[in-house]
């Protein structure tokens, strides 16, 4: 089971990072959301996986580690606030700059990543 779990964490991270490297704001936001799923699952896994042992006293014989759970819980909520902030920032940037590229300007020429000049400034 741990293997599948680790695979899922790795996959979410990889997908998140690929999208976070895109040029437009919306895919980046989606990528960050995927990445935060991966990060939350990763943090949660640091308490190790346990079945049927919620950290509620008296409900089971052994308990899962409650500390990573508490940390991840707040991380989920804060993560939402940050996602919201980035989304609104992206909208504001589009309103003020007229495009939705993360650089704030559209790439001028079709670019190849290894031979680029610094942008127009």
């Amino acid at each position, binding site marked *: 089971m*741990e293997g599948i779990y680790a695979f899922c964490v790795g996959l*979410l*991270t990889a997908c998140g*990072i690929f999208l976070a490297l895109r040029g437009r704001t919306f895919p980046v936001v*989606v990528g960050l959301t995927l990445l935060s799923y991966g990060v939350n699952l990763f943090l949660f896994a640091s308490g190790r996986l346990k079945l049927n042992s919620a950290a509620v006293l008296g409900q089971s014989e052994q308990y899962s580690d409650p500390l990573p759970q508490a940390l991840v819980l*707040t991380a989920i909520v804060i993560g939402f606030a940050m996602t919201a*902030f980035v989304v609104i920032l992206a*909208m504001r940037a589009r309103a003020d700059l007229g495009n939705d590229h993360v650089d704030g300007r559209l790439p001028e020429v079709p670019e190849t990543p290894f031979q680029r000049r610094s942008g127009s400034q």
Partner: protein
Amino acid sequence: MLNDLIWIPLLPLLGTLVPLFASRFSRSACAFLTAALPALALVLVLQLAPQVFDGETIRQSFLWIPEMGLNLAFRLDGLALLFCLLILGIGLLVILYARYYLSEKDSIGKFYAYLILFMFAMVGIVTSDNMIQLWMFWELTSISSFLLISFWGHKSEARKGARMALTVTGAGGLALLAGVLLIGNIVGSFSLNDVLASGDLIRNHASYPVVLVLVLLGAFTKSAQFPFHFWLPHAMAAPTPVSAYLHSATMVKAGIFLMARMYPVLSGTELWFLIVSMTGLATLLLGAYVALFKHDLKGLLAYSTVSHLGLITLLLGMGTELAAVAALFHIINHATFKASLFMAAGIIDHESGSRDMRQLNGLWKYMPYTATLAMVAAAAMAGVPLLNGFLSKEMFFAETLHQDSLGSLSWMVPVFATIGAVFSVAYSLRFIHDVFFNGEPINLPKTPHEPPRYMRVPVEILVGLCLIVGIAPTFFIGDLLYSASAATLQGVVPEYSLAIWHGFNFPLLMSFIALAGGAIVYINRKELFQFQSQFPENDPKLVFEGIIQLIHRQISRLMELTENGSLQRYSYMMLSLAMVMMAGPLLDLNATEGHRPQIPIDAISITGAILLTVGALATVIWNRDRMVALVALSVVGLIVSLIFAKFSAPDLALTQLAVEVVTVILLMLALFFLPQRTPKESTPLRVVRDLVIAAIIGGVIGTICYALMTRPLESISAFFLENSKIGGGGTNVVNVILVDFRGFDTLGEITVLGIAALGIFKLIARMRLYMPASDDAGRPWSKDSHPLMLSVVSQSLLPLALLVSAYIFLRGHNMPGGGFIAGLVTSVAIIQQYIAHGVAWIKSRMKLDYQLMIGSGITIAALTGLGSWAFGRPFLTSWFDHFHLPLVGEFELASAMLFDLGVYLTVVGATMLILANLGKLTTSERPVLKEQN
């Protein structure tokens, strides 16, 4: 109270402010008031002098961070006393001199303020009893000297000279800091007392060579030793009072002071001898030789200063006790004659309008009195008998004869010393003969005349000292020199004699050779000048500027390459770095899999994993079709919450589920304003590159995750599990951690949440967005925005949802739930009403001020924490008890519940502030900018 040592630096520090206020009065009054506090400090030093002469070391310290060895500590021993007298005494003379030197146009208040700031820094260096503090004052002298050199900032040479001095001495200061930190590391203390007592420890330490080189770099740059000497002549662009004060008497001596201070700790090794004495010898010869060819009066004096600093360094480098005494003696003598010479040069410049010795000739006729003073001082510089320079030079010659560290080549040292002295005599002769005799002045801008009466007073005093010390040395400075030597050597002071006559001996012979040789060299100067003119003129200023500009160009190029303003590229670079940093340590991990028993795989998990994989891949593959990507994303989020549920984290599952709902609604709203499709613009190369980096990082993270999970866990959570019920009064340990054990963290987190929401609110408030009338494909939005079915159902759902959220909130302490989750459930319920009925409908029915909600939530949480102070407990101590009410039965009340209420309110307020305001933008309720009206 004024007996406190701290007043010695403190008075000049206060004095820095005086000229700023006093400059509104007349120049004389300003000078007088400025001098008052330094004079008081001088009195203080003199008053303490008898104690120091008795062999006492006066120390005083104020603890600051004693654990780190950072204290404010002062000491006054013989060495500090000697320097204090020089700094304060000559400083006062310079104040008087500058009063006449500066013109009406110069801001005298500013000048004095810089000058006294420098004085404060110097006094701080010499009286510091803590190495870090010493270094701090050291840097302050660099900065204040920068301000003083660039005082005439309209001149390009002043700006360049100041920059060069700051660069060189500042770089040396950094080296010194590294050296000081190393010393502190070796000794275990920054206290000078401890360091001075640990000489053997440091000398035998493996990093002694590094310490020595670093400290000497600091000293050599400050004291203009070869090859760092080039900044000093360029610092002559400063007003002459500054040159007299900083660049002859005090600041350049700070490096010498440092060597003398660290003498008991660092000296006595072969390495010390080689570096210090050879550097000193090279500087001595170079300075003396170049000085002869300078046509500028101040240039001649500057190189002569370099040469004399080299002489003192050479003496300190010899490592014998008598040589150290001679070095200290020469410090005093050089300060007196060189300061007076600079002042005389300043007078000549001031009254004749030129410093060029090709123009200045025959000034004896115009200013005989000044000429006499300058000639006596120059004679002292040349080492003529009956003047102070003669005495210390004799001691110097004697010491060069007595050292044998160069083995069979030791005879070279006295020979080189004599050659240096020959040139010293030659340039002194040139200073006297070329300026005051040698024909008539040529094309001077002004007719020279004697300076104002009081401008001469400082020169008179200093020249008087040269004479007095030269004739009756023991009587005037015997005690001072003895106590300074005792402090420098930190041990027994050797027998030495300050008499003017030691009989016919070798040093005397060397003096006469120097005098005669100097005269011969000067007489034949024409040939020498001609020989020298064959060398290409090599201006160190241009070289220095060239290097600086080269560095600047290279840095700019590097910046262009890496920092081109593209965030996309920055994230790529940061992720690549993260990849390297993460993958590196994994190479050392022998086995991926640990020994912890694993959970067997079941069909449901496989199904979940497949769904998650498909969802995540679909999000990526169809990422350009944003709506599809969003739907796929929500599938992933749902599976994630199921994963939490599966692995015994019900609180997380609930939170994730609720957050998933609000996130998707948020992104849908955003999609209304953003383009619904992403244009295809990434090159195939970029796609491959990003895929590779994403795959590697994903693989690395997955590996770490797997390695982590398959290894046993040592957690601190046993404490939480044990104390949750008895200490926190709840059985849901996750919730008790949030509101009790780690309540302070949670308080911080809801504050961040509130701040983020308010930030979003402000971003939205002034947003000018084009409202699309149709979707991407040109289809107009549905007219029926609030379908009847949805309205009716959701309306009846609201009370139910609120009931559920209340239930989740109340049971949160003992069962899965709590403020965070209840807050999110409430938000979802309210958002549903917005979706079903529209903003206008809600507005007339629900009067909720979300900003107020956030504010009161954080306030309630904070007040709950503060409440425990009322009971004498630390911040956020929780309280709980069990009560019994008829009908309801037994129930529990806990202060943590109140705290959780704060969390609940903040979460509801923040979520709604974000979503409701964003939603409003899509309707006629959108905020209208004033400019549009």
